[in-house]
C-alpha cells in the first residue's frame, strides 16, 4: 500500500493536551447566567403504584423554583416504543423510575427539596427474571399489554437447519448466559436546557446523536405545546459514550420541562451513583446454541435461541438482536442459520446500546460453542476456525457482501504470536484460547439514512475549517478527520480545525454508533476536501500558468507536478481570489451516505459496505486454589482496512480489550430484586490501570476499496471476542468451561471442586 505524509502517521489525539491539563470544558464545567440546578427523585420500589405525592413542603423551601411530577406535566412518552414518560404517574416499574424533579438555585437546595417530597406507594410484586416474566400468570408490567414479551419478532432463517442437522457428522449444544454491564463513562451524564425569549430551545448535551436527539426534543416540545420552534444542540467535550448516549433520557426532558416552567436555564447533572443507576446498560442474555459440522469440520448449521432482559422500558437494547444476527449468520462460513430472540420486560433497569451492540453476547456463545465442537471432533480449534474462516468476495447467508476480509491472517497471526502449537493443551494450570469477530466496518444502515455531511472552508491564510456532523466522544474522530482533510489538501494537519459540536453550524450526521465515524464521516470529509481542492487548483491554474490536472499541493504550497519551480503558496492564491473583482470565498460541502442496505422484512440485506474482522488470542494462568485468572499474554489482531492513525487505533484496541476483559472476568451489575447493589466504582469492578495485561495489538491492513484511504471501523470490535477467548483459554488451562459471565474466581473454584469430585467418583472429566 502507498505511504502518505499524514494518513497512516502516529499523530497524537488533538484534544489530549486540553484534557490532561484540565482546560477542556465538560458539561460539569458549564455555567450559564441565571442557571438553576435540577435534581430527580427516583422510585423507592421496583414495582409499585403511586398513591399520592405531596410536594408542598419542597415547594416552600427557599431557593426552590419549581417542582414537577408525572401529575403536572403534559402526557409525553419517549423511547423506541414510546413507552417511557419522563416522570411517572400511576405506576413505577423500576428503581430508576423518575417520580418528581426539582429546580433550585443550588444543587444542595435541590437535593434537600427532594428529601421533603412525600410519596406514598403501594408495593406490587416485582418480576426480575425474564424467564419468570414469560410464565403464565406472571404480573404484566405495562398496562394494556397481554404479555411481558415485547412485540418484536426477531427471527432469522437462512437455509434449512433441520436438514443440516440430519446431515451433520457432529453436533454440540449448550446454553450460555451473560450479565448486565454498564459503560462506566468517566464523564457522567448531564445537560443544560435553555429557552430564548421566542421559546427556541438550546440543549447543551453529552449526546452522541445530536441530530436524532434534536428530533426527539422537537417531538417533545410539540407535545409540550411549543410547536414549530428551533432546537439547537451544542455538545460540550464528552467524557465517553460507548453507546450510553445513543438515546435521549428522562433527565433531558426533565431539564426541558423545568426550564420551561422556570423560564431559566436548568442543568441536570448525574452523580456517579445516578450514572450507574439511571443510565441504560448492556442487558443480560440467556442463549441456547447448537452447531453442527461435516466429517471434515466444515460448519453446516448454527441454531440459536436467545432471551434478553429488556428491563422496564424499551430503548435501543431491544433492537440489539438485529446486530447479533451479524455474527450469528456471518461469523465463519455457515450455510444454514436459525435465530430466534425474545426481549422480555422485567422490573430491572432498562437496556440500551453499548459498544458492540449485542455482538459480545452472541459471540461469547458462538466462539465458546465452536471450541466445544472442535473438542468433540477431536480437532484443533485453530484448524476448525481456519477451515471455516470468512473470505473476500463471499456473500453470507444474511446477504452480506464481503469485500475486504483479513480473518485468516488474523487467526494465523494470533496463533503464531501466542505460540498456539507450543502451548495449546500442554501446560497444567496454563492455557491458550482464541476467538474471532465480525462487525460492521463500513457504516450500518440502521436508520433510513446512514449519512454524514461535511462543509469545508479555507481562510485567507490557508487555514482550513472542517464542519462535520460527526461527534467526538473521546474516540478521536476529529483527529482522523483532520488527517484525511490535511492529506487531501496537502496542508499540515495542525492547519486543519474541526468543528463538530453544534447543530446550528454543522451538517447532519446520524450519530456516533456502529463503528461508523472513520468510515462514513471520513468519506464525507474526503469528498468535501476533494471538491475544495478542485476549486483551489482551478484558481491556481491561472496564476501559475499550468493546467489544474498538473497541479498539486504539499505543505501548503501549490506547485506544478511537471516543474516544481512553478509554485505559489496556498494562502496567496486564496487571498488573490478573495480580493479580486467579483471575489470568491472557497467553500465546499459534501454529503456521504454509504451504499449499504436496510434489512428487508426477513432481516436480510447488506447492512454495511464493508465488514471488520479480528481475532484475539489469550494465554492465562489459573490459580487452582483460589480460582483466580491471570492473563499472561493478550494478542489482538484486527483487520482494519488501513490504519489512518496507528497510535489511536491501538488505543481503541487497548481500550476495547480492557473493557472486554472486565466483561469476561469482573464486571457485573449486581441486581437484587431490581435494586442495584453496586452503584459505585468500589463494588462495580471495572478494571484499573494496574490490572492491564500486556496487550499486543496486531494491525492487519486489507485496504478496503470503499473506505477512506482503505480504512474500516474499529470503534467496537476490540471487546467483541474477548470473553470467549478467555473462557476458551481457561478451559485449556484447567479443563473447566464457565458458560456464565463474568468468570469469577468463585465460579472457577466451584467448577474445579465439582470436577475433582466427579474425578474421584470415577466419572469422566478432562
Amino acid at each position: 500500500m502507498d505511504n502518505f505524509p499524514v494518513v497512516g502517521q502516529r499523530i497524537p489525539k488533538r484534544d489530549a493536551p486540553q484534557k490532561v491539563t484540565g482546560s477542556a470544558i465538560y458539561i460539569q464545567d458549564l455555567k450559564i447566567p441565571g442557571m438553576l440546578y435540577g435534581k430527580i427523585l427516583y422510585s423507592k420500589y421496583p414495582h409499585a403504584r403511586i398513591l399520592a405525592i405531596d410536594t408542598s413542603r419542597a415547594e416552600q423551601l427557599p431557593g426552590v423554583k419549581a417542582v414537577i411530577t408525572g401529575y403536572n406535566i403534559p402526557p409525553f412518552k419517549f423511547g423506541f416504543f414510546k413507552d417511557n414518560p419522563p416522570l411517572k404517574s400511576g405506576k413505577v416499574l423500576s428503581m430508576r423510575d423518575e417520580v418528581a424533579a426539582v429546580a433550585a438555585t443550588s444543587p444542595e437546595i435541590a437535593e434537600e427539596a427532594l428529601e421533603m417530597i412525600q410519596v406514598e406507594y403501594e408495593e406490587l410484586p416485582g418480576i426480575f427474571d425474564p424467564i419468570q416474566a414469560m410464565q403464565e400468570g406472571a404480573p404484566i408490567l405495562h398496562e394494556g399489554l397481554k404479555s411481558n414479551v415485547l412485540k418484536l419478532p426477531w427471527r432469522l432463517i437462512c437455509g434449512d437447519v433441520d436438514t443440516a442437522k440430519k446431515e451433520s457428522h457432529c453436533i454440540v449444544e449448550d446454553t450460555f448466559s451473560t450479565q448486565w454491564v454498564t459503560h462506566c463513562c468517566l464523564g457522567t451524564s448531564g445537560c443544560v436546557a435553555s429557552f430564548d425569549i421566542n421559546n427556541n430551545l438550546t440543549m447543551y448535551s453529552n449526546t452522541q446523536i445530536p441530530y436524532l436527539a434534536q428530533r426527539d426534543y422537537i417531538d417533545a416540545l410539540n407535545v409540550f405545546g411549543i410547536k414549530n420552534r428551533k432546537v439547537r444542540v451544542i455538545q460540550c467535550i464528552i467524557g465517553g459514550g460507548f453507546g450510553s448516549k445513543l438515546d435521549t433520557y428522562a433527565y433531558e426532558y426533565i431539564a426541558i420541562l423545568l426550564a420551561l416552567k422556570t423560564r431559566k436555564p436548568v442543568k441536570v447533572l448525574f452523580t456517579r451513583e445516578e450514572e450507574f443507576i439511571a443510565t441504560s446498560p448492556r442487558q443480560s442474555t440467556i442463549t441456547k446454541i447448537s452447531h453442527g459440522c461435516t466429517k471434515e469440520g466444515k460448519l453446516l448449521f448454527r441454531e440459536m435461541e436467545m432471551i434478553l432482559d429488556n428491563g422496564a422500558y424499551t430503548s435501543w437494547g431491544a433492537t440489539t438482536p438485529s446486530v447479533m444476527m451479524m455474527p450469528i449468520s456471518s461469523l465463519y462460513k455457515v450455510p444454514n442459520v436459525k435465530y430466534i430472540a425474545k426481549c422480555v420486560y422485567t422490573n430491572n433497569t432498562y437496556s440500551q446500546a453499548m459498544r458492540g451492540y449485542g455482538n459480545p453476547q452472541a459471540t461469547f456463545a458462538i466462539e465458546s460453542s465452536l471450541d466445544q465442537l472442535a473438542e468433540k471432533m477431536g480437532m484443533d480449534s485453530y484448524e476448525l476456525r481456519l477451515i471455516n474462516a470468512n473470505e473476500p468476495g463471499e456473500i453470507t447467508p444474511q446477504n452480506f457482501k464481503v469485500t475486504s476480509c483479513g480473518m485468516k491472517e488474523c487467526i494465523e497471526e494470533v496463533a503464531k504470536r501466542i505460540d498456539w502449537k507450543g502451548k495449546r493443551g500442554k501446560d497444567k494450570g496454563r492455557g491458550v484460547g482464541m476467538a474471532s469477530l465480525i462487525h460492521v466496518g463500513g457504516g450500518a444502515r440502521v436508520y433510513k439514512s446512514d449519512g454524514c455531511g461535511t462543509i469545508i472552508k479555507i481562510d485567507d491564510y490557508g487555514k482550513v475549517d472542517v464542519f462535520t456532523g460527526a461527534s467526538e466522544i473521546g474516540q478521536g474522530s476529529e483527529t482522523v478527520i483532520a488527517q484525511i482533510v490535511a492529506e487531501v489538501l496537502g496542508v499540515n494537519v495542525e492547519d486543519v480545525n474541526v468543528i463538530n459540536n453544534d447543530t446550528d453550524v454543522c451538517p447532519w450526521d446520524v450519530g456516533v454508533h456502529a463503528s461508523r465515524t472513520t468510515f462514513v464521516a471520513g468519506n464525507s470529509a474526503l469528498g468535501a476536501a476533494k471538491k475544495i481542492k478542485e476549486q483551489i487548483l482551478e484558481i491556481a491554474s491561472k496564476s501559475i500558468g499550468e493546467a489544474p490536472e498538473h497541479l498539486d499541493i504539499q505543505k501548503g504550497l501549490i506547485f506544478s507536478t511537471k516543474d516544481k519551480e512553478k509554485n505559489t503558496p496556498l494562502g496567496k492564491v486564496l487571498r488573490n481570489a478573495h480580493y479580486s473583482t467579483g471575489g470568491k470565498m472557497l467553500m465546499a460541502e459534501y454529503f456521504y451516505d454509504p451504499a449499504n442496505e436496510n434489512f428487508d422484512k426477513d432481516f436480510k440485506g447488506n447492512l454495511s459496505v464493508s465488514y471488520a474482522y479480528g481475532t484475539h488470542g489469550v494465554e492465562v494462568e489459573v490459580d487452582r486454589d483460589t480460582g483466580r485468572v491471570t492473563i499472561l499474554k493478550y494478542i489482538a489482531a484486527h483487520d482494519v482496512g488501513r490504519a489512518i492513525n496507528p497510535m489511536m487505533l491501538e488505543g481503541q484496541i487497548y481500550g476495547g480489550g480492557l473493557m472486554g476483559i472486565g466483561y469476561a472476568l469482573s464486571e457485573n451489575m449486581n441486581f437484587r430484586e431490581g435494586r442495584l447493589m453496586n452503584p459505585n466504582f468500589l463494588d462495580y469492578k471495572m478494571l484499573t490501570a494496574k490490572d492491564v495485561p500486556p496487550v499486543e495489538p496486531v494491525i492487519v491492513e486489507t485496504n478496503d476499496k470503499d473506505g477512506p484511504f482503505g480504512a474500516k471501523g474499529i470503534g467496537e470490535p476490540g471487546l467483541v471476542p474477548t470473553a470467549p477467548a478467555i473462557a476458551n483459554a481457561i478451559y485449556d488451562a484447567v479443563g473447566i468451561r464457565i458458560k456464565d459471565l463474568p468468570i469469577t474466581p468463585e465460579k472457577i473454584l466451584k467448577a474445579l471442586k465439582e470436577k475433582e469430585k466427579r474425578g474421584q467418583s470415577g466419572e469422566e472429566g478432562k
Partner: protein
Amino acid sequence: MRGYEYYKPGTIEEAIRLMTSLEDAQYIAGGTDVLVLLRQKKIKPGHIISLRNIKDLAFIAHHNGLHIGSGTTHAEIERNEIIRRNYSALHDATSNLGSVQIRNVATIGGNICNAAPSADTACPLLVLDAGVTIAGLEGERKIPVDEFFLGPGKTVLRKGDILKEFVMPLFGPTTGSSYIKHTRRQAMDLPIIGVATRITISIGKNGGELRCRDILCTIEDVSNLLARFEDEELRCEDIRIAMGVVAPIPMRAKEAEAALKGKIISEKLFEEIGEIAANEAAPRDSVRGEAWYRREMIKVLVKRSILRSIDRIIRPDDMVYPERLW
C-alpha cells in the same frame, strides 16, 4: 451535603477539648472514609475537626520497637525501609491499600478507627502484637490492638478520644510476617478476605542452617517444599494468625495458632491449620463475596501467608520474590 463548621486544632489537647465541647462533631484525618460517609449522608456532622494540623500525630520512630503515630499516612509507612524488612505484614497492607492517591492522604489511625472488618492494616497490627495509645480527656491509656475493636464501625474510643500511636515490639531475624489481601482487582479494592501471619522459626537439623533455602527461588510444588521443611525440622516457635472480613471485627485465629506453635511444619499440619482457622471464622455472604468462598480462601491464604513469612526469614535480602502462588 449540608454545611458544617471546620476546625483545625494544632494540639491533641485542643482537639479533645473541642470534640468534648461540641454536640455533633466528627474527627477527620485523611478523609478518605469520612468524606465518603458524608456524601452518602450516613453521617451529618455539624462540626468537623481535622487532625491534620497536629504534628505530634504523624511520625515513625524506632526506639524499643516501632512507634507509628496515628496520623502517619499509608504512603509514609509504605516507604519506610525498616518496616518493609522487619514488619513486612504492615508494608504489605499499606502498599496495597486503595490507590497511590488514597495512600498519600489516608492515615493508619483512620484505617483503624473506621473499624471496618476489611481494614487492611488491622490484621498486620494484630499479628505484630501492636499496642495502641489513646489520649482522652482524662489522660492517656494503653491497650493491645486486640481489644480495640468492638464491632463494625465500633471501637473502645469514647467521646473526645484520639488514637495517638501504635507501638510494636522488636522482632529478631528468625521472625517474619506477611499480609495477603485477596481482591478482585489489583488496585482500588477492598479485600474479599485478608490474612496476616507472623512466625518465629528454628531449624532442628544441620546446626540451624536451612539447606533447602534455594528451593524457595524455584517453582517447586508446595508439598515438596513442605516435605523438605519437615525433613530439616523447621519448627514454629511462635505464631500469630489474623483474619479480616471473616467476622464483625478483624480477629486472631487463636486455635490455629495454638495448633501450630512448637510444632515441626508439615503438609499435614498445614492442612489442619487451614481447617482450624476456617472454623474459627464466621464469614458471611455479602455483595463482595460469598461465605463459602471466604472460608475456602482462609484455608488457602493462611498457608500461603505463613509460607511467605518463612520465605522472608530465610531470604530477607531478596527484594524481588519469585512469582510463586504465595
